[in-house]
C-alpha cells in the first residue's frame, strides 16, 4: 500500500536533486532544470498532503498556482540566459565572473 510517506520521501529526494543540480551544474539551462525540480517537489508535497493527510482541496489548488509561477519563472530565466548567450556566446556560468569582491 502506497501511503503519504512514500510521496514525501520521493519529494524530498527530488528537492535534494534539484539543489544538487543548481549547486554543481555549469550549464545555465541545466541549473534552470534544477530549479524546476525544486518547485515540482513542493507540488508533490502539496498534492500528497492534500490527498492523504487533510482530505481537502487547498493543497491541489495551491499546486495549480505553483505550476503557473514555475512557468513564469522559467520564461524569465530563459530570457536572461538567452541574453547572456547573446553577450558571451556561451551559457557556461563560469564565464559570468565580472562582478567580484
Amino acid at each position, binding site marked *: 500500500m502506497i501511503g503519504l510517506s512514500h510521496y*514525501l520521501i520521493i519529494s524530498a529526494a527530488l*528537492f535534494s536533486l*534539484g*539543489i544538487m543540480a*543548481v549547486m554543481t551544474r555549469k550549464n*545555465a539551462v541545466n*541549473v*534552470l532544470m534544477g*530549479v524546476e525540480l*525544486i*518547485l515540482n*517537489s*513542493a507540488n508533490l*508535497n*502539496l498534492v500528497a*498532503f492534500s490527498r492523504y*493527510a*487533510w482530505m*481537502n482541496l*487547498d*493543497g491541489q*489548488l*495551491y499546486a495549480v*498556482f*505553483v505550476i503557473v*509561477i514555475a512557468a*513564469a*519563472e522559467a520564461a*524569465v*530565466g530563459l*530570457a*536572461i*540566459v538567452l*541574453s*547572456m548567450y547573446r*553577450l*558571451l556566446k556561451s551559457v557556461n*556560468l563560469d564565464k*559570468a565572473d*565580472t*562582478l*567580484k*569582491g
Partner: protein
Amino acid sequence: MNPQILKDLQAFYPEITLTATLLAVILIDLAAPRIRQATTFLFTAIGLLLALALTFPLFAAKSGTLFYGMVALDPMAVFFKGFLIITSFLILLVAPGSKEIAKEHIGEFYTLLLGVTLGMVLLASATDMLMLFLALEMVSVSSYIMVGYLSTERQSNEASLKYFLFGAVSTGSMLYGITLLFGLTGTTKLVLIREAIIHGAGDGNNGLMLLIATIFIMAGFGFKTASVPFHFWCPDVYTGAPTPVTAFLSVGPKAAGFATLIRFFFTGLSDTAGSIWGFFPAMNWALLVLMISIITMTLGNIAALRQENLKRMLAYSSIAHAGYILMGVVVLTPQGLQSVLVYLITYLFMNLGAFMVVIEVYNRTGSFELNDYRGLWRRSPFLTIAMTIFMLSLMGIPPFAGFFGKLYVFGAAVNHNLAWFAVLGALNSVIAVYYYARVIKTMIIDAEPEGAQAPPISLSWTSHILMWAMLLPTAGLMLFWDRIQEITSNSITLFFG
C-alpha cells in the same frame, strides 16, 4: 457577484488603481510611439499618486481580512502600502535623470516598476501563504528583469542572472517549507496556522518538522531582506544593476520583505496576540532571527570596510542595516515593531539620497569607484555636503534621521532586557563609521589626481529639487517627531483573526 467580494473591493482601490495604471502604461507605450516618453511617465506618476491618495482613507477602516482571508486590512498593512508606494514614486522621479536608464527604452521600466509596486503592496498585506508566495514571486520575477534592464551590458546581465538563480532557489526552498507547514496544519491561512499550532500541531516529533519548515521559509524572507546567509546575491546585484534599480531594491523590496516577515512570525507563529508576543516552546524562532540579526550586521559592516566601489559598499551597508532592523523584530514588543517602522522611514530618505548622489556623479564621471570622488568638494560643494549628510545619517550621528532610527531600535532592545544585544549593535555602528567616514574624507580631503582638472558639476533643477526632497527629511526629521511617533505607534496593530 457575491456581495462580500463587492464590499471587499472597496478596500482594494489602491491595488486596482495600480493594476489599471500598469495596463494603461503598456498600451500607451505600444500605441503612441511619438509621445510615449512623456505620457508613460505622466500616467505612472498619476497612477502612483492616486493609489497613495486612496490608501490614506484605509487607515480609519476596521481591521479585518479581505477576499475570504487572503489579504489583511490592518494599520500595519496600510502603513506599508503607503511607504512602498512613496518609495516607488521617488524612484520614478529619479530614474529619468540617470544616464544608465536613458540608454534604453524607458516605457518598459515604468511598467516593471508598477508591477513590482503591485507585488510589494500585496506582499505587505498577504495573510494567506498562497497569496504571500504569489506576491513574493511577483516582486522577484519583475525585479529580475529590472536588474537586467541594460540588455547590452555584460554586468547588468550577469547581475540579473545571479539574482535570478539565487532568487529561484531561495523562493523554491521557501515554497518547500510552506508545503511542510501546510502538511502539519492543513491550512494556508496564517491565523488558522497559529490556531492549529496552539492546538498541538507542532507537538512532539512534529516540532522538528515545524522548525525545519520555518528555516526553509526563512530562506525566502532572508532573500528579500538580504540577510545572512541569503545575502550573497546582494553585492553583485547592487553593483551590476542600473543605479536607480539598485536604489529601489535597497529600500522597496527590502521593506516589503520585512512587512511580510513580521506578519508571518507575529500572526502565524506567536502564541499570544497582544502587548507582548511569545513563541511556541516547540520552536524558538526568536532565537533563530536573533542569531541571523547579529551575523547580518556584523558581516555587512566588516565586508563593507574594504570596498572600493561605492555601489558595492552601499550594498554591504544595506545588509548591515537589515541586521539592525531585524533587531527590532526579535524584541517582540510593540516598541520593537514601532522601532522597525521608524527605522524604515529614516532609512528610506538617507539611503535613497546617497544613491541619488551616486547617480549624479556617475552621470558626469561614468564611474562608481571611490577614487573618482576625489576632488568632488571643488567640483560640486552642494553634492559633497549632501553626501556628507547622508553618510553621517547612515552612521547614526545626531541630529540626523539615522540616529533616531538606531535610538529606537537599541532602546527597544534595552527595554526588553536585551541590553547586550543593543551593545553589539552599537559596536557595529562604530565599525560602520570607518567606511562611511572614508567616503567623506575622499570627497573633501584627498588630493585630486595629477593632470587635467575636471570641470565643476552643475545640477539640473529637477535634480536639485529631488536632492532637497531627500536632504530635508534626513536633516530635519526630528522637527516632525511628534507626527512620526504618532503615525508609527498607530500603525503597529496587526490583524490576529
